[in-house]
Structures are given as structure tokens and as C-alpha cells.
């Protein structure tokens, strides 16, 4: 079995094992083992990738190509580059942390973990696919478990949120389908056969008219899942209603599929379309960044704050991608990783606070540092990393994005937008610092909460799993940057 297909096989085995396990105890142990194996595989993949990259200069390595539907030229075609490897690693970390955080899921635990693993299976599938059709299949597989995850185990208006989220995301992927078909039927523009293979299509000169026509379909199809303004409305509701681990996985991993798809499919295959449309979508992305940040200031529910912050930060990823600049792109990928870890951390912490105090209203919380020192300290660190303090991953990402967006061959239009977007950093500081000041440092709101249970071992493990890479990327970003930069080369040749 090759190293990448294992990322499909292991989740499937985990799911089968879960089907036959009864009760919470068994289910969580099975999913923990499954996720640990996945993380091990992801780390192994990273080292294997470095080794392979030294001798192999192909765009994608570890490729494998099996014919699936031969009449449509659909293949099961997999391979990774540095970007996918980094994102796979992120996924593995967040999934394992998610399993730890959901250690106490009491209602239908088996079904919960199965849905969680199905979601991760879809995400892995997207990251390893080179074939547009398989990519699309995995993309939808990743989205649909969200309905059950939010609907069954969520809180608040869960049915409404679950339905809204599913319909908006599936609607987006339906739009994406039109775009993919458009690409497919133009993939023979240079005379070859019709193909779904991304690498082959990238070599084809798709007619300009087709590129202009289909770029919005593909872009919007992917960007909705990254909460592109004005299609972001599913995100705050969805996050607020979702159970903790699902929020983590969703904001941490699933929303990254959008940026990844924009980058890997929309921009790579339709570069002229990207040039033609970037001015329009970059305005939407910039609005998303600023709007998300300002909305976060006004929220009083911890989860809503974080959800809007995600809209803002992922808007930044889309913004960076649309500047069509190498350094900014590097920043966009690092931002994806950094935001994935940090937002997962935030949601995990919010879940822990909520589990103890039974409120997420910041007006009812205060002085948590006194009663929950571990959670409080991590919360403060996460907050600082989130607003881009040097030494953490957020700084590296945003630095790259803004330097790139402003510096190289940027015209006045892009620079004005960049300045506008940079202002969001200030707003981010406002809501993060206010939050930390109020609920962590402020006076105790009530006296009857002084004896809240301390963080348990599984919670601490989950938190540390997420915290270590944040610091790792912040302190030593070079290895990651290099891995990403090298993989960006072929894209830059294609697009810029």
C-alpha cells in the first residue's frame, strides 16, 4: 500500500472498527488509536517528503495513478507537494486534538466519532487528490458529516445552523461542479484528450473566454467554504451551534479546503481568469477581513467572536492568494496552517470554559485566570499568537502576506486595499485584548464558581498537541517556508 492511500485506508478501518465497538469507552479509544496512527503517518510522510524532494523534482511526489472511469478519463490519481504535506499534518493534529477534546461525548458517542473520522477522511482525500473528480468527491464527503455533527450534538439553534451550513456549502459545491465541468470540457484545447488531471490541465492553454467564464464558478465554489464575504453567514451560526471538536475541525481544517481549492484549482488551472477577476474578488476578500474583525468586536458570545475572527483571518488567506504574489502566497499557506491551529485551540478552550461555567457570554465571565490557571494561561498565549505577536505562527503568516501584498509589483489599487486590510490587525488586537482583559484578568463575576474542576489529562494533551506547532512555526518558520516556497514555484510560473 502506498504512503498516501493509507490516509484513505486507515480512516476507513477506523470507521469499521468503530461500527463494531460499543459505548463511549471503546469508541473513544478506537478513534484515539486511529487518529494517533494518522498523526504518525503524517509525520512520517513529512520526513519521507523531505527525503524524496531531495532527489525528485516533480511537482507532485508519491504519485499513483489508477484508472477509474475510463470513458470519462477519471483516474484515482494521488500525489502531494509541500503544501499538501503541511496541510495533511495540520489535519492529523487537529483531528487527534478533537478526539481528545470530545473525550466525554455522552450522546451517541459511536456515531459522533464515525462522523468525525468521515470528515477527516474527506479532508485527507482532497489534499492528496490530483484528479479533479476525486477531489470533488472527497470535498463533498468532507462537508456532509457536518450536518449530523452539528444537528445531533450541537447546541442552541442547531437544526437551523446545521441546515444553513449544509445548504450553503453544498450549494457552493454545486456551483463548483459547473466550473469543474467547464474546465473538463476545455481540457482538450491543445488537442489532447479530455482529462480531469490537474497537472495535465495546467499545461493546456484553456481559451481565454472559457477561463473568464468559469473562474467565478470555481472560485466561489471553493471560497464559500473559506467564508468569502458575502457568503460567510453560515460560518458564525454553524460554529456557534457546533460541539467543540466540530468547531475545531471545521474552522481548523475544513475551512482550509477553500483556500486550498482556490489555489490548487481555480488559480492554477485558470490563471488568465484569475488575472481577469482578481480585482473584483479581492475587494470581497478585503471587505471580509475588515468586516469580520469589526463584527467580532461587537459580539458577546465567545464562539461568535471566534467565528467572526475566522471570517476575518480566512479572508486574509483569500486576499493574499488574490494578490497573485509569491511572498503573499507563502504567507497565505502559513496563515492557513497557523489559523487552523490557533482557531482550533481557541475553540477547544472555549469548549472547556463552557463545559465548566455553562456560559459563553463574556459579560458573565471574569477572572478565569484565578480559578482555571492552565486554561487561562493558554488562552492568553493563544490570544497573543492570534493577534500576530512575533514568536508565534500568526506573526510569520501576516508578515509574509502584507510584505508580499505591498511590496512586489503592486499597483495603487492593491496597495490601498492592503493598507485597509492591515488595519484589521489593530481591530483584531482590540477584540482579543478586550476579551483577555475581561474574562481572564478581570474581577470574578460570581463567587460560586471558585471550585471548578481543573483541566484533565486529555484536555491538556489536546491543547499541547495544538500549542507546540504554533510555537514551532513561530520560532523556526524556515523549514516550513522552504517546503512551501519550493512547491509554489510551478504555480508561480503558471500564474504570474
Amino acid at each position, binding site marked *: 500500500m502506498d504512503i498516501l492511500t493509507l490516509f484513505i485506508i486507515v480512516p476507513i478501518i477506523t470507521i469499521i472498527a468503530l461500527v463494531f465497538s460499543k459505548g463511549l469507552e471503546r469508541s473513544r479509544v478506537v478513534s484515539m488509536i486511529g487518529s494517533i496512527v494518522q498523526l504518525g503517518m503524517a509525520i512520517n510522510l513529512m520526513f519521507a517528503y523531505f527525503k524524496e524532494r531531495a532527489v525528485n523534482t516533480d511537482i507532485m511526489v508519491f504519485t499513483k495513478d489508477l484508472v477509474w472511469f*475510463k*470513458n470519462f478519463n477519471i483516474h484515482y490519481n494521488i500525489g502531494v507537494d509541500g503544501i499538501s504535506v503541511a496541510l495533511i499534518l495540520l489535519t492529523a493534529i487537529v483531528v487527534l486534538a478533537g478526539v481528545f477534546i470530545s473525550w466525554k461525548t455522552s450522546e451517541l458517542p459511536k456515531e459522533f466519532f464515525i462522523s468525525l473520522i468521515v470528515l477527516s477522511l474527506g479532508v485527507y482525500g482532497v489534499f492528496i487528490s490530483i484528479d479533479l*473528480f476525486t477531489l470533488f468527491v472527497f470535498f463533498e464527503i468532507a462537508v456532509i458529516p457536518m450536518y449530523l455533527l452539528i444537528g445531533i450534538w450541537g447546541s442552541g439553534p442547531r437544526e437551523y445552523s446545521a441546515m444553513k451550513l449544509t*445548504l450553503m456549502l453544498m450549494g457552493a459545491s*454545486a456551483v463548483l461542479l459547473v466550473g469543474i465541468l467547464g474546465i473538463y470540457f476545455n481540457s482538450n484545447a491543445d488537442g489532447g484528450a479530455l482529462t480531469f488531471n490537474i497537472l495535465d490541465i495546467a499545461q493546456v492553454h484553456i481559451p481565454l473566454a472559457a477561463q473568464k467564464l468559469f473562474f467565478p464558478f470555481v472560485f466561489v465554489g471553493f471560497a464559500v467554504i473559506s467564508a468569502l464575504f458575502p457568503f460567510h453567514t453560515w460560518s458564525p451560526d454553524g460554529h456557534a451551534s457546533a460541539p467543540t471538536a466540530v468547531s475545531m475541525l471545521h474552522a481548523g481544517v475544513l475551512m482550509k479546503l477553500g483556500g486550498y481549492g482556490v489555489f490548487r484549482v481555480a488559480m492554477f488551472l485558470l490563471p488568465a481568469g484569475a488575472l481577469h477577476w482578481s480585482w473584483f474578488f479581492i475587494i470581497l476578500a478585503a471587505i471580509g477581513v475588515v468586516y469580520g474583525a469589526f463584527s467580532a468586536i461587537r459580539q458577546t458570545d465567545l464562539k461568535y467572536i471566534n467565528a467572526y475572527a475566522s471570517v476575518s483571518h480566512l479572508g486574509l488567506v483569500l486576499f493574499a492568494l488574490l494578490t497573485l504574489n509569491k511572498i503573499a502566497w507563502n504567507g497565505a499557506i502559513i496563515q492557513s496552517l497557523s489559523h487552523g491551529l490557533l482557531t482550533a485551540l481557541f475553540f477547544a478552550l472555549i469548549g472547556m470554559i463552557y463545559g465548566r461555567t455553562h456560559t459563553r457570554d463574556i459579560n458573565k465571565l471574569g477572572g478565569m485566570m484565578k480559578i482555571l490557571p492552565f486554561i487561562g494561561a493558554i488562552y492568553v498565549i493563544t490570544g497573543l499568537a492570534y493577534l500576530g505577536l512575533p514568536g508565534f505562527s500568526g506573526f510569520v503568516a501576516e508578515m509574509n502576506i502584507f510584505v508580499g501584498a505591498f511590496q512586489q509589483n503592486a499597483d495603487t489599487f492593491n496597495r490601498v486595499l492592503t493598507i485597509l486590510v492591515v488595519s484589521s490587525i489593530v481591530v483584531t488586537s482590540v477584540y482579543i485584548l478586550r476579551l483577555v482583559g475581561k474574562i481572564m484578568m478581570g474581577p470574578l463575576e460570581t463567587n460560586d464558581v471558585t471550585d471548578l474542576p481543573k483541566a484533565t489529562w486529555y484536555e491538556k494533551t489536546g491543547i499541547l498537541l495544538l500549542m507546540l506547532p504554533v510555537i514551532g512555526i513561530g520560532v523556526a518558520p524556515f523549514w516550513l517556508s522552504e517546503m512551501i516556497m519550493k512547491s509554489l514555484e510551478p504555480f508561480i510560473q503558471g500564474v504570474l
Partner: protein
Amino acid sequence: MNFSSFLLMRQEILLLTIILLLVVAEISISQSKKQSIVHLAIFLFGIHTIVGFFTIETSSLFGGMFHTNNLIHFFKNVLNVGVFILLLQSADWLQEKVVDEKKGAEFFILLFSSLLGMYFMISSGDFLMFYLGLELSTLPVAALAAFEVTKRISSEAGIKLILSAALASGVSLFGISMLYATSGSIYFQDIALIISSTNLTILGFVLFFAGLAFKISLVPFHFWTADVYEGAPISVASYLSVISKGAAVFILMILLFTVLKPLMHVWENIIYVIALATMFTGNLFALRQQNMKRFLAFSSIAQAGFILLGLITGTQLGTATIIYFVLIYIFSNLAAFGVVQAISLKTGKENMNDYEGLYRTNPNLSLVMMLALFSLAGIPPVAGFFGKFFLFTAAASEGYYLLVFLAVVNVTISLYYYLLVVRAMFLRTSDQAIPYFKNKLYMRLGLLVTVVGILVLGLYSPLYDYIFELSKNLN
């Protein structure tokens, strides 16, 4: 007629034999052992289904009135498999409710007669045979729809079906007569050579098309659907929505892609409009349905709209994707109807809000239902996704991007109401949830086959390749 021509008609002859055997069995089996007729019929039909899988030569009989090839043979096999699953799912209902009323054999005889009519319809080489097949396939179903004579609603369904079907086939016949008037022949081969787009031909075609559109329940010929489905016994509703619709789609495809190909510039516009009308009407009406049978009725109207996306192409790709989609649709819809049938039989409940909390009490049934609905909605990795994706691909290959776009909008709308059922079963909990019950062997088998189909048909690509090869016979 020599032996080899018997072999060419073996599906028809075998089915006719089964019908006659059942008549004999009905007379000879004593009243106390009448239950065994159900076993006997399922057993015989199972053999019939298996025998159908042997390949057949391309040939025609009776001076071109009846012709057959591997593709047509495959159509019949698809229908056979559908009917076989249907029989498995209806066995319990028949044993518990129908046999006691001394109508066990009748059910099978009527059902198989209707199927026989479909065989002749699909195999027809001229309009006379086609019309005979059409009538034979419709009339017994009307009797079946009114099968539960004690229920007013069932009789009403039967009357509604027979009246509207008679009108539809009359209109169709009128159209055929016009086609005959302009071309001077009722043989498909001759018509294909002579036909040209004069006004009378087009009028004839439109009237003829209306008759078949009625059977597929395309908008605006769909008004009978929901009422008949609601009133008829579930097995019959399921038969109407799956087998009857599938057969009509097949023959419509054969006629459009071969005989009426010269009129393509006319019918592609008609189908474009009807496809949109059907998808939107089916989906929008399904949104508010509470009764599961009505719900599935509108869902099946919407599905018929999707099928038209393949029909509009007129190519081999279109043929292959339609057959593939119909095959998958048969499995998905039968799974959904099977669950409705099982629940209705045990508890008599048919409304969506009766399904609340079903997963907590009957997890397996809920999972089958969820898979079926996901397949109907087109969510990977279940088969429905592949069926829909390929249909859209076929339409896009001819440049109908706008139509595909509007179709995917419809897919999203349909996802909403399919999720409503999932919501009732999985998200809600209820004090009056349907208590746990165990299905009998036949029902479990019937559901199992559909689930395997839903899971495997999409992922197993050689099947599609095989269908694609077969489709060459048509284009």
C-alpha cells in the same frame, strides 16, 4: 416461428409462462396454503431474472414489429432486477394483508402482465406494437392502484390513474396517427428515413410525446402522480415511480435517439423547457410535503427532470448516462420506498413527523433511509452522486451549461427536503417514536440488496464501462 426465434423472445415467453403457472397455482393450491403463492412467485421471478442475464443476439421478428439486441435486453434486465427487489419488499404486505383476501395471485398476475407490456413496448419495432405495449403496461397498474378496495383513497387512485392514462394514451395514439399520415408507415425503420419537420409531423410528435411524458410524469403531465402514489398501495406506488417510469424513459430514449432523430432541433427545445419545469416544480412542491408517499412522488418528478438532461444530448454519452442513472435511481428509490413500506406495514404511519427519533429506536432502517436519500440527493460516495454527475457531464458535453447550472441549483433545493427526513430521523427525539421492530426475511433481503446497490453501483466503474459499450447499439 422456429426455436431460435423463441429464444429471442425468451424474456417475454418466460414471463408469460410464469403468469400462466400462477393462474394454475391459484386454482390448484388449497385455501389454507395460499401463502405459498408468494414464495412461488418470488422464486419463479428470481429464476426469470437470472435467466435474463444471458446475452442475446441482435435480431428482429414478425417482419420488424419486434426487435431485440443486447441493449434492449439490458433494459429488460434492469426492469427485472427492480421488480424482483420490489417483490421482496412487498412479500410481507402480500402475506399479511392480500393473501387473506384471496387476491395473492391476482397481484402477481397483474404486475407481471404490466411488466410484459413494458417488454413489448421497449422491444417494439413499429408504433402498433409500441401502443399495445403501452396499454398493456398501464391498464393492469390501474387495477393494482385500486387494489385495496376497502379503502376509498385507493379506489380513487385507481380511477384517477385509469382516466388520465386513457386520455394520455388516446392523445398519444392521435399523435401516432399524424406521424403515420405524414410518413405513410408505422415501422420505425421507415419513419426514420422519411420523417421531416413539417408542421403536421411536429404536431404529431408533440401529441405522441405528451403520452409518454404522462408515464414519466413530466411537468405539465404530472398532476396524477402525487394523488395516485398517496392512494395506491406502497408497492404499487413504488412500481409506478421506478419500473413504470424507467421503462417509459427507455422507450422514449430509443425513439428520440433513433426514429425521431431528424426532429432533434424540435425536441431538444421542448425537452429543455420541460426539464426546467419538471425539476423546479417537483422540487418546490416536495418542500412542503408531509406524507412520505407524496414526498417521494414529488421527489420522483424532480428526478425525472434530471433524466431529461441526458435525453437532451442525443449522443452515446447521453444514452449511457441515462441508463446508468435510471439503474441507480431504481435502487435508491426502492430503498426509500422499502423503508416507508416496512414502517407503514408495522405501524400504519406514513407521515414525516412520525419518523422523528427513528434512529434511536430503529437504527438500521434509518441508515437505509439516509443512504437512499443521500443517493437521491446525489451526495458522494453513494451511487446517486455518480449518476447525477455523469448526467450533468453529458449535458455539459453538448454545451448546455446554463441548464446544468439550473440543475445544480435544483440539486441544492432537493438536498433541503431530503435533509428534512434525515432531520426527523436523526436530529429529533420523540416520546412517540416508532418502537423497535424486526422485519421479516424478505423485507430485510429486499432492503439489503438496495443498500448494496447504492453503495457499490457508483464506485464500481466497470459497470458504467459496460453500459457505455452497450449504448453503441442505439447511436
